[in-house]
């Protein structure tokens, strides 16, 4: 198990360095003089010179990368030009919204996805399976933000259950937080619920017919008991994989949904940064999110080894 874990760590580490190199390299893709672009229109020669020195653009590439990378490692993420504030300050201020959305969304996706998938897979071709299959297909095909708009029309404008915009911090009022997060988190998780339930349905309908499940039922063990114990364990690896994959998808969706619900999150910051060509913010955002995704995949890999000992020796 230890060697398996070390092995996985050894593949994750170069990946992180590579992502860091890539995000750093973004600056070289800028057309023309990056310092001029970043300093913005109408910047004076002195300002451009400052930007150039700040970014270290006058230094050799490897030196630039090393300085930048060292800074990143100790949490010095540089300065945003459009906000005129340190990137780490900007991010810590906004991370709560995005984390809330992704965590609640992941919860929705895993619970709703697993339950729907299990019941559909137990009785393939049944009425429940048919209805959910249709909904899953629609959920995978519809644009996330359109689903969110439909949610707003139905639940905010027509029914008046939720506010269409805004975010309440969990430290301010846990109840208010929940109320403000439910609708956007639901919208964020639709595609993921569809994806998870589709996968769980496939594994569940496959496992259902295996001998030990039939034997269990013949012995009179209650259906739900066999379900949870055996199917849960046997389709566990597949389910964890697919749920792990949702993290990347949920982050992408959260960025869009935050804008739509006017929530002061990471996504909003990022979109403004994109519109203002605020490179330091973009670099750190991409690096941060990619690191989260890589570490999630690492955790998924390691949990395989814990669930299914066979994989370790393989």
């Amino acid at each position, binding site marked *: 198990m230890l060697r398996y874990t070390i092995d996985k760590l050894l593949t994750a580490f*170069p*990946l992180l360095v*590579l*992502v860091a190199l*890539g*995000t750093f390299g*973004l600056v070289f*893709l*800028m*057309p023309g003089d990056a310092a001029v672009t970043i300093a913005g229109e109408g910047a004076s020669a002195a300002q451009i010179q400052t930007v150039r020195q700040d970014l270290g653009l006058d230094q050799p590439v490897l030196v630039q990368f090393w300085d930048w990378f060292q800074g990143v490692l100790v949490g010095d993420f540089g300065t945003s030009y459009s906000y005129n504030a340190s990137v780490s300050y900007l991010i810590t201020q906004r991370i709560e919204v995005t984390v809330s959305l992704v965590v609640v969304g992941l919860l929705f996706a895993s619970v709703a996805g697993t339950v729907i998938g299990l019941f559909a897979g137990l009785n393939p071709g049944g009425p429940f399976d048919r209805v959910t299959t249709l909904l899953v*297909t*629609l959920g*995978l*095909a*519809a*644009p*996330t*933000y*359109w689903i969110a*708009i*439909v949610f*707003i*029309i139905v639940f905010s*404008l027509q029914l008046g259950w939720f506010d*269409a915009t805004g975010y309440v911090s969990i430290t301010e009022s846990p109840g208010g937080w929940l109320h403000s997060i439910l609708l956007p988190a639901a919208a964020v998780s639709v595609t993921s619920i569809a994806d998870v339930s589709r996968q769980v349905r496939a594994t569940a309908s496959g496992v259902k017919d295996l001998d030990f499940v039939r034997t269990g039922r013949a012995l009179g063990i209650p259906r739900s008991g066999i379900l949870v114990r055996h199917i849960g364990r046997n389709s566990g690896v597949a389910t964890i994989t697919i749920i792990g994959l949702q993290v*990347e*998808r949920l*982050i*992408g969706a959260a*960025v*869009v949904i935050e*804008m*739509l619900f006017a929530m002061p999150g990471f996504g909003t910051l*990022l*979109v403004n*940064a*994109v*519109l203002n*060509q*605020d*490179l330091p913010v*973009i670099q750190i*955002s*991409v690096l941060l*999110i*990619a*690191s989260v*995704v*890589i570490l999630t*995949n690492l955790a998924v890999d390691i949990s395989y080894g814990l669930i299914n000992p066979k994989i370790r020796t393989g």
Partner: protein
Amino acid sequence: MVALGLLALLLLVALVADWIMPHDPNAQDLLGQNAPPSATHPLGTDDLGRDILSRLIDGTGVTLLAPFIAVGVGVLIGLPVGMLAGYFRGIFDWLSTRVADALFAVPGILLAMAIVAIRGPSTVNVMIGVGVLFAPRVFRVIRAEVLAIRQATFVDAARTIGASPMRILRNNILPNTAGTLIVQCTVLLGMGVLIEAALSFFGIGVQPPQASWGVVLRRSFDSLTEAPMQSIYPGIAITLLVLAFMYVGDGIRESIGKEHREAGW
């Protein structure tokens, strides 16, 4: 078949758009803003009084073209790299796999956004950005497929008649990956539609006055409280288009499965 028919119909609509639009898609009618559906405006008008149906028809071309550009770029990068990595293995394979993994770790929309941020917003830049993000997906399936095909006896047979590696890649490996590639492309086309719509929502996708369905949907969002139904039509159109790509992909996958069984492969 229904899906293929729908795609053909949309293509036709895009080609004859100029003749079938009931109104000028950019003609503003400041007295008839956010009008509900009527005989003259079957889907109503937007916040500038422009006919929504005409704008959707006008946007069909870009909406269809954009994902094809993106997939084209993705294939242009991912296919050759995947084939070379899968066939020759070695350090090139190791490196390109790592790069693909790294690109995979960044959510698609973020990567596209980063590229737009750097190159500036324009329809072409956006779709090239999306193409770069598709490349590792094409790379992965092609590499896996080539790893399997290079073990095939017919590749050994090609080597013994003196075929060069490039010739084998072109004549034996490429045709045998075609099925997988086409299926993957339909998946990516659907994704491309969704990503274009999302980027247009931020105003960093297709640039006005050019209309895509994503742009129309974005515009309608601003009038959400006044005319909620406005947002429904473009959304339905996008969903149908994605569904069509999905079903066409499924259809191709099934027919390829049959062929392979017949060929005993």
